[in-house]
């Protein structure tokens, strides 16, 4: 089959939404399909959103490829007779973040008109699609609630989970990922401060462009609390083999984002490396993957309760190892694999 994959990007920013596209392209090619990936720069600035929606709508791909797979918003507005949308998130300011402190669209008549236009455009792009998939139950519920669209959850797998391994249980918890405020690495430091065991913490990842201050704040928090010997911050790009080694040697993985749409690749990587994952009840999509007490711990976002979880993992290594090994089963149970993804997207 000839397949066009379309997505939007912020140039030079890598993350979950760029990996899902790159990896899907590779997997489709490995299965003998001819793939062309179109990556359109997109500005998130609400003042520029509407005109860009129109730009996407005007581009006509209807003569190219047997199928269009649209990934990141608003590539679902592109025109194609056999368009399959794998929806990974809304323009949330117009949806669930409307009326919260995270709403970026102003609450003015113009802002309300913009919000309504975004919703109307989404309804058009989604309703005309041949099929609509999404990457998590959170997104599925939102599509149903706001757009009355019935989407099928299709969990995105890792490119090569088999490359991850465990080299036994070390003495440190790993928080890997971009350094940005809503990932709440600070909550991990605040919690570690309250532990009674000698468990350590390694925070690793690149500061998000524009969030360079945040990395310094984290270091400041460590220093202020005299945790220099127990917390290590690697504020830089982590190469793949170093990353796998960090996973292999850790005790457990911690992940405390605020209300993420999907589970995040770090959760899959923890499972692939047979490590338990410690997360919070308000983390969002990761709660679809981690079951408290089975393949990790899910606690309220309270430093004291998190600290208990950290100590438990450190003090009972056998239990930690068992929970880590349960991760793979959970992935199989949810059907997170490429064979299924390709089968569904091309059905």
């Amino acid at each position: 089959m000839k397949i066009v994959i379309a997505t939007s990007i912020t140039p030079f920013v890598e993350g979950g939404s760029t990996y899902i596209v790159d990896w899907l392209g590779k997997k489709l090619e490995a299965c003998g399909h001819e793939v062309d990936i179109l990556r359109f720069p997109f500005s998130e600035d609400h003042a520029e959103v509407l005109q860009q929606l129109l730009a996407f709508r005007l581009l006509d791909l209807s003569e190219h490829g047997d199928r269009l797979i649209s990934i990141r918003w608003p590539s679902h507005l592109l025109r194609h007779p056999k368009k399959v949308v794998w929806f990974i998130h809304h323009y949330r300011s117009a949806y669930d973040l409307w009326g919260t402190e995270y709403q970026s669209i102003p609450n003015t008549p113009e802002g309300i008109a913009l919000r309504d236009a975004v919703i109307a455009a989404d309804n058009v792009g989604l309703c005309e699609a041949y099929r609509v998939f999404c990457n998590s139950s959170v997104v599925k519920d939102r599509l149903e609630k706001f757009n009355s669209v019935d989407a099928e959850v299709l969990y995105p797998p890792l490119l090569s989970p088999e490359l991850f391994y465990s080299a036994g249980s070390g003495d440190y918890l790993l928080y890997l990922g971009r350094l940005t405020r809503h990932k709440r690495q600070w909550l991990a430091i605040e919690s570690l401060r309250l532990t009674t065991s000698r468990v350590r913490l390694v925070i690793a990842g690149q500061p998000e462009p524009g969030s360079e201050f945040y990395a310094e704040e984290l270091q400041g928090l460590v220093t202020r609390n005299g945790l220099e010997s127990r917390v290590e911050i690697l504020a830089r790009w982590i190469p793949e083999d170093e990353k796998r080694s960090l996973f292999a040697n850790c005790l457990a993985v911690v992940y405390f984002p605020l209300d993420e749409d999907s589970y995040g690749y770090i959760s899959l990587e923890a499972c692939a490396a047979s490590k338990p994952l410690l997360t919070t009840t308000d983390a969002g999509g990761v709660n679809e993957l981690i079951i408290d007490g089975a393949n990790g711990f899910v606690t309220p976002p309270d430093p004291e309760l998190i600290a208990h979880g950290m100590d438990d993992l450190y003090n009972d290594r056998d239990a930690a190892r068992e929970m880590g090994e349960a991760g793979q089963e959970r992935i199989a149970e949810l059907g997170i694999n490429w064979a299924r993804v390709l089968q569904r997207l091309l059905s």
Partner: protein
Amino acid sequence: MRIAVLNNCVPFLRGGAEHLAEALTLKLAEYGHSAVLVRVPFRWHPSRHVGEHMLACRLMKLPNIDRAIALKFPAYYVPQANKVVWLLHQFRQAYDLLGTAEGLSENSEGRETREMVVQADNSYLPEARKIFANSHITAERLNRYNHLQATVLYPPLLRHDHFTCAEYGDYVLVPGRINEAKRQRLIVEAVHHCKSNVKVVVAGSPERLEDAKTIRSLIGNDDRVLFINRFISEDEKVELFSHALACAYLPYDEDSYGYVTLESYFSKKPVITCTDSGGIGLLVKDEITGLVVPPDPLRLALAMDRLFDDKVRARRMGEAGCELVESMNITWDHVIESLTK
């Protein structure tokens, strides 16, 4: 600098422009910039789609970008405060091809589209800090139709140091994508008229199935023609050039000199081309770096026979071609400096 290279695209199709856009993006990174290639789909048939895609480009945004380098219509309409245009070509259907079979139709829709394209070029191309063109033909056209000045900036090969010359063998090489406009058929027709034992190797993937069929039926049972009907890897191409007697490149009215010409000269092989091939004439000087003949199989046959019968001459022309290219500053140093100044 964080740079966006803007090109248009037809999904799944790759030709010279796509190759150049990718090479430029790679080279910008090699010279220490962050570069991203932005490919904007373009549909021009029927002509009502032209305006939609022009508008789409105008509405696009480029966050996180310090400079745009735009190559083609309509991608060069994408607004960016610090944009340079390296013009490969405008929408020729609205300019020099108007009135030909490939141009816009002479009906009201065609006329309106033409008017819109010319207006938009006149209004938006001057937004660029500077306009470069890939050939003097592109630059002249921009000047004639839009009264805009462009500096000629020749596109180099991605790399050329791997091309070699092992011998002056017995075949004329015809490399590249096979289609009607590249006129590979002329050389196949010509070989039937050759008096010497010169052979021909046609190597490349056809644009459409019919293009391959045409070539195959013209070859018939003539075992002097070898048809390698598929995409040729870089290594294979280097090898084919290395053992060739000469190269034939006969497109109809091309704007620029073509990568094939550069590859041939870096392999020290003379180039046979036609009087109506356009920009190739910049590098192919008749009797000095190759042979320029009318698009006539009999004359092409004569040219092939001459090179086959006088390989010393063939070598001298190939070497002269290489010297000419090296004297013209067709280098990435020059290109990157010009586009990022």
